[in-house]
């Protein structure tokens, strides 16, 4: 096994035992990038020289007995929506040509303090406003979409060109590409992880979180990210995360939705997720049927919040250099100016109703288990999907549909791989918890992974 194939937990343990050096690990990841990045295009920029220098520094510190923790010496990628001082934040857009970040984002600074090694900036769908990331190819099948908007981050982790990466999630942009590439993605509770220095899409829906190869690794990255940041108005004072001891799921009430999450879902996805819920029950969890409240209003609320907020942020650039946006993003931003304020406020009030109803739901169950996405990765260029009842849905709407409730309500949601479809493409199960219950979500995911999951190896198509 090459070092790039290790999980964070394995690499960190080996570094701690002085059996693996950060320099060796980083060299292995950079060699992996050389080998597979050409066809995959996960990275907008690879920072080989600075990564080698950071790895050498980490090696010196660790040799001197100053091991900062589990991320010290671990190579990672950052979505190119997240500022790093001295580097451009391209946001996947020509509208950002010439940009240079003058300071680290909150999360980049935290990861630097943890001693992690930045190997590059990963591709995003332009300004995170889309679900495909057309620059990047799926790690399992180059003819299929990476998913988005954090497509580069998910593909890098799946392909072994980063041990972890950060993404952002406004309507599924961490969970969708993670699910489509067979890796783990965590959208934390709203306000737990700072968005300072991260290009916004929609302030009231945006989250930053980790993409990893295992649930156990997500639990190692989250503590480094979580914490109060007064520069992010949504950041929660005293926000913190400490992992809970894992293992036994006895007594854990897992809600299984009777509506919304299993409607218009590919049979292979439904089958794999229902089988995974059965396995959670085998581990001691208690499945409970639940009805998802206000399901009919999920898309309307998501759009009513996101579309005007996105336009508000982009208005000056849209006025000055509209031609620098890709057509799909430009038209959404322009049309957002025509949405009445009353519709936006109605969406904000609907969110209150949904939030209250979901809080009641979480009095009955500890988690909700559901598909992360209704179908596996579609071929590049496919724009719609036809369901068995004759309904036709836009691919982007389908991918957002099962993610959006956790963005609207702000509760944590994890996706982890639970199987493959008939084409061998990965299927993700979503575990959704109550606010700030990341420990419960990760404990359940980790227990599943320990009992049934694959060992976190890179995607075979990229091997």
């Amino acid at each position: 096994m090459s070092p790039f194939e290790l999980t964070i937990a394995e690499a960190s343990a080996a570094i701690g035992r002085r059996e693996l050096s950060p320099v060796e690990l980083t060299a292995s990841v950079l060699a992996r990038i050389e080998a597979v990045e050409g066809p995959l295009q996960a990275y907008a920029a690879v920072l080989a020289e600075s990564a080698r220098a950071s790895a050498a520094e980490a090696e010196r510190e660790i040799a001197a007995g100053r091991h900062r923790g589990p991320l010290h010496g671990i190579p990672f990628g950052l979505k190119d929506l997240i500022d790093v001082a001295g580097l451009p934040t391209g946001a996947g857009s020509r509208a950002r040509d010439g940009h240079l970040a003058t300071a680290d984002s909150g999360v980049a600074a935290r990861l630097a303090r943890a001693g992690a090694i930045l190997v590059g900036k990963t591709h995003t769908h332009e300004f995170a406003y889309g679900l495909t990331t057309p620059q990047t190819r799926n790690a399992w099948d180059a003819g299929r979409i990476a998913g988005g908007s954090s497509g580069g981050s998910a593909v890098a982790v799946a392909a072994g060109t980063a041990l972890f990466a950060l993404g952002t999630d406004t309507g599924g942009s961490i969970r969708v590409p993670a699910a489509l590439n067979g890796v783990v993605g965590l959208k934390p509770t709203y306000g737990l992880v700072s968005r300072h220095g991260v290009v916004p899409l929609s302030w009231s829906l945006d989250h930053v979180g980790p993409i990893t190869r295992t649930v156990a690794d997500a639990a190692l990255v989250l503590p480094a990210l979580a914490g109060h940041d007064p520069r992010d108005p949504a950041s929660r004072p005293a926000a913190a995360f400490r992992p809970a001891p894992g293992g036994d799921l006895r007594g854990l009430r897992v809600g299984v939705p009777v509506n919304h999450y299993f409607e218009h879902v590919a049979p292979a996805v439904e089958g794999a997720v229902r089988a995974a819920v059965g396995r959670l029950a085998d581990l001691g969890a208690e499945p409970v049927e639940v009805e998802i409240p206000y399901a009919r209003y999920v898309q309307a609320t998501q759009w009513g919040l996101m579309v005007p907020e996105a336009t508000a942020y982009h208005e000056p650039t849209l006025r000055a250099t509209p031609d620098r946006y890709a057509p799909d993003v430009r038209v959404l931003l322009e049309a957002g100016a025509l949405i009445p304020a009353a519709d936006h406020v109605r969406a904000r009030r609907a969110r209150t109703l949904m939030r209250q109803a979901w809080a009641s739901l979480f009095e009955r169950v500890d988690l909700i288990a559901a598909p992360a996405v209704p179908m596996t990765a579609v071929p590049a260029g496919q724009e719609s999907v036809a369901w068995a009842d004759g309904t036709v849905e836009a691919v982007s709407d389908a991918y957002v549909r099962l993610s959006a409730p956790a963005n609207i309500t702000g509760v944590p949601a994890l996706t982890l791989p639970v199987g493959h479809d008939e084409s061998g493409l990965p299927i993700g199960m979503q575990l959704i918890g109550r606010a700030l219950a990341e420990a419960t979500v990760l404990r359940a995911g980790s227990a599943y992974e320990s009992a049934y999951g694959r060992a976190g190896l890179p995607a075979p198509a990229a091997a």
Partner: protein
Amino acid sequence: MTDRLTAQEAARWADRAGLPLEEERHAVVAATADHIAAVVSTLRELELGETAPGAWPAGWEAADVTL
């Protein structure tokens, strides 16, 4: 769903919103805005009563932040 927005109306609304559009953009923006309005207008079915806007996560108030 409200009446469909014409290209001319889209142009005028965009002007009023402070984001004037070039003429060749009017029709495509009108169609996209119509589609968004059709989705968002579903919320008009809701009985919102005294409900105030809020942004904090479900169950946030009761959560133990120290975990």
